[in-house]
């Protein structure tokens, strides 16, 4: 497009959006909307203009005008809510942390760390960028929590306010502990190596025995914290699984560690040598490194949200005395509440008064709002679009339909995955074989040279300690997760890769998953519209905030806009106005044509009346994601594909060619039906991957082996799941799934390598020749080889398969 056509079109200096034909000009700068201009003005008047220099167009645009914003954060004045949110409050100074999904660039960090220039009461603020979190210390006598939030909202950094999440602080504590363990193990390993090194040199026997004693006892001291602190998890989990009669990979590790330690201690006490403490500490160090490498987390993403983080913290209750803000836990059945524009319905309720126009996009993925009349029942989870409505609460939050579904099986995790993993299958055989070899060697030496019997037995256990084996999975899957993360596919943990590999059946949700959540295809049925008529329709639509009008406005061909007079919007009916002196009505069939709906129309329609007659109607159809057909075709070769949709059958004809089989297309499925469908599949031995997006999939996502959520904005709310896929990457889903198979092959090859090392090591051990130097070389070498092989081959194959 040339500049000639659109001379006045500039990009907004704040957010970088196109300003359209009529930009708002302030101090010679162009803005796309009043919101952006206000922020710019505010920052400039506070000498914060540098915000616009660190990065180009750093600002955040907020589309929705918020006329009732003054009441929006009322609940932050409630003491019980304040107490929950504040990290610390004493002597007039408070500290709070906010999750702000809008944080995205260096300018954001700069601005949020300079909040004190906007308000003097802010003492200090610091941003944690990976977590998208800002922590603010402020004087609460001069600025209330509510004012602080309103200030953040005024510069368009709207915090997402949730009661403090306990699990989150716990998670950061475990990473800290792991780091500490790695550090201590590394320290001990390196120092122990120094003390052991002289023993490995030729002429080590010449060393004064006093030195040998000193070095021995020093390494003994160094290995104590390693064994009892750093490696404690391995003993614990080995013990735990033993109690459940399971042989896990941790058992041979624990056995090896104990044998190493006892054998070495005996060596020192009996003055025969200084033992294997270097191997012992090195082993633990490598194992912990593996654990740390595998444990990468996407800190700003949350995979385990409970319903509390979705619903608001407080609601406006209408009491006899008037409006009152109460925490959501205090909401009871029978309460009357007020739900304003863009607020969530917190509990199942009936409408008392007001025009309800409810957007269930978080629930179903369908963005076109549903209008409801007084007396109608509404489910919790919808978002009101339009003026405020009054509701009578029917059920408490915990008992609402969706929350119940959500809570049905809160923890499916952690009980079974440990059993099924390939590593544990391998380790079962491994442990049994190693112990038999050790026994066989001991028995053999008992008859030939009984002094060597015990030594041979312990040697086998020492050298066979499956360090390399245990590192295979963390490094292969850890690298795979990193590759996936770089491409917009985020996994909750490394176990998910193996579960994806075992998937036999893929179940899709329709709306918002394989279709675009925000845009739909618009078709006009009726007499062909003239360009002038299209321009008139667009002009009228521009005045309405209804999502259908917005879609029409953006989908219809661009052109000049006309002035509209007598604009009226009749909720749940339509809009009308006069353009160029010509009357236009648009909206439901009943509103435009006067006819009652004869038969229930399956598709969303907007009827148009211009001047004297009805011209026809716009039809809204789902817009399928790019690459859907290719992805489905590809997936079909390996998986059973199913579709479960909460929608009606209108799309059956379009989807049949893709899914081939009628039986696999299921429409009109309620959230509980979806859950039951998955349960049924899994009861028949299918390992399912559920792909969904909304709250109505929450039950199915949790029930399936792997729940995958497709999100347009990954930092927005997503139901609890195992993986999050960026919506734009939908077309690569088959490649991701295929890559899990490559990962698995790499795991198996790495297993082979570590077995080879073990065979070499055990041949030394059974012949009674395992000296500390062989252990000191062989054990780290095998670990390093496996780690290098796993990481490099994952990288190479990822590059090869163009992931």
């Amino acid at each position, binding site marked *: 497009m040339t500049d000639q056509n659109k001379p006045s079109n500039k990009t907004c200096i704040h957010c970088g959006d196109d300003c359209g034909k009529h930009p708002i000009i302030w101090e010679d700068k162009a803005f796309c909307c009043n919101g952006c201009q206000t922020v710019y003005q505010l920052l*400039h008047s506070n*000498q914060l203009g540098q915000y616009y220099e660190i990065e180009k167009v750093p600002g955040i645009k907020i589309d929705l005008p918020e006329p009732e914003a003054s009441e929006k954060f009322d609940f932050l004045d409630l003491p019980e809510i304040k107490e929950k949110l504040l990290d610390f409050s004493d002597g007039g100074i408070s500290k709070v942390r906010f999750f702000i999904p809008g944080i995205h660039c260096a300018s954001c960090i*700069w601005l949020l760390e300079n909040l004190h*220039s906007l308000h003097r009461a802010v003492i200090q603020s610091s941003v*944690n960028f990976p977590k998208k979190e800002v922590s603010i210390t402020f004087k609460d006598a001069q600025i209330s929590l509510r004012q602080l939030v309103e200030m953040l909202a005024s510069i368009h950094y709207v915090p997402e306010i949730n009661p403090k999440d306990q699990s989150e602080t716990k998670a950061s504590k475990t990473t*800290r502990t792991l780091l*500490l363990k790695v*550090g201590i193990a590394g320290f001990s390993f390196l120092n122990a190596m120094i003390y052991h090194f002289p023993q490995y040199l030729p002429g080590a026997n010449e060393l004064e025995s006093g030195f040998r004693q000193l070095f021995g006892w*020093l390494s003994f001291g160094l290995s104590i914290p390693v064994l009892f602190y750093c490696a404690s998890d391995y003993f614990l989990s080995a013990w735990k699984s033993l109690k459940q009669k399971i042989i896990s990979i941790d058992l041979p590790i624990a056995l090896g560690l104990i044998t190493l330690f006892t054998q070495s201690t005996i060596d020192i006490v009996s003055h025969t040598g200084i033992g294997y403490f270097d191997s012992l500490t090195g082993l633990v160090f490598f194992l912990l490194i593996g654990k740390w490498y595998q444990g990468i987390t996407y800190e700003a993403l949350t995979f385990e949200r409970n319903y509390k983080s979705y619903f608001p913290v407080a609601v406006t209750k209408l009491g006899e005395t008037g409006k009152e803000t109460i925490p959501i836990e205090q909401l009871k059945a029978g309460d009357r509440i007020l739900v304003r524009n863009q607020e969530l319905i917190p509990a199942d309720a009936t409408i008392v008064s007001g025009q309800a126009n409810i957007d269930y996009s978080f629930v179903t993925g369908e963005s076109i709002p549903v209008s409801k009349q007084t007396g109608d029942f509404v489910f919790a989870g919808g978002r009101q679009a339009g003026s405020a409505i009054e509701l009578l609460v029917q059920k408490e939050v915990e008992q609402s339909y969706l929350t119940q579904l959500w809570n049905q099986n809160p923890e499916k995790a952690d009980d079974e995955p440990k059993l099924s993993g390939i590593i544990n299958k391998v380790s079962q055989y491994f442990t049994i074989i190693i112990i038999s070899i050790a026994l066989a060697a001991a028995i053999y030496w008992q008859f030939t040279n009984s002094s060597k019997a015990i030594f041979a037995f312990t040697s086998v256990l020492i050298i066979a300690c499956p360090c390399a084996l245990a590192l295979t999975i963390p490094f292969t899957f850890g690298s795979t997760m990193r590759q996936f993360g770089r491409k917009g596919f985020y996994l909750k943990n490394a176990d998910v890769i193996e579960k994806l590999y075992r998937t036999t059946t893929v179940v899709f949700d329709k709306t918002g998953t394989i279709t675009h959540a925000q845009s739909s295809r618009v078709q006009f049925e009726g007499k062909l519209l003239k360009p002038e008529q299209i321009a008139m329709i667009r002009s009228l639509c521009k005045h309405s905030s209804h999502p259908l009008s917005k879609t029409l406005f953006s989908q219809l061909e661009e052109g000049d806009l006309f002035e509209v007079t007598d604009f009226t919007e009749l909720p749940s009916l339509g809009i009308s106005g006069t353009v160029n002196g010509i009357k236009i009505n648009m909206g439901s069939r009943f509103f435009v044509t006067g006819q009652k709906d004869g038969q229930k129309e399956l598709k969303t329609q907007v009827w148009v009346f211009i001047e004297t007659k009805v011209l026809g109607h716009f039809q809204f159809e789902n817009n399928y994601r790019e690459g859907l057909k290719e992805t489905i075709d590809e997936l079909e070769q390996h998986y059973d594909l199913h579709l479960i949709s909460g929608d009606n059958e209108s799309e059956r004809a379009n989807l049949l060619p893709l899914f081939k089989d009628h039986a696999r297309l299921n429409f009109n499925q309620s959230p509980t039906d979806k859950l039951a469908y998955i349960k049924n599949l899994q009861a028949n031995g299918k390992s399912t991957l559920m792909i969904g997006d909304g709250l109505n999939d929450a039950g199915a996502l949790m029930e399936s082996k792997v729940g995958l959520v497709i999100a347009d904005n990954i930092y927005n709310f997503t139901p609890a799941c195992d993986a999050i896929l960026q919506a734009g990457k939908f077309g690569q889903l088959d490649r991701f799934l295929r890559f899990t198979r490559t990962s698995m092959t790499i795991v198996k090859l790495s297993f082979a390598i570590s077995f080879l090392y073990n065979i070499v090591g055990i041949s030394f051990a059974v012949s009674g020749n395992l000296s500390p130097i062989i252990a000191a070389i062989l054990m780290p070498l095998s670990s390093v080889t496996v780690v290098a092989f796993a990481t490099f081959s994952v990288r190479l194959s990822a590059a090869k398969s163009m992931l």
Partner: protein
Amino acid sequence: MSVLFVLVIIGILVAAVFLIAFIWAVRSGQFDDTYTPSIRILFDDHISSDTTDEPQEKLKSKPKST
């Protein structure tokens, strides 16, 4: 040769100091966010050192200092 005994002990003590420093750093949360500080260091210390606001800044600060 017996000086080696002393040196070895000194060696481990020095190493222990670093270990303690590491433990302190982890405990105080210095490894919690390893990304943001890398950006923070690039910012100018004082706000409004940028060109557009310089005159205003000078006006503001002068009366205070004199």
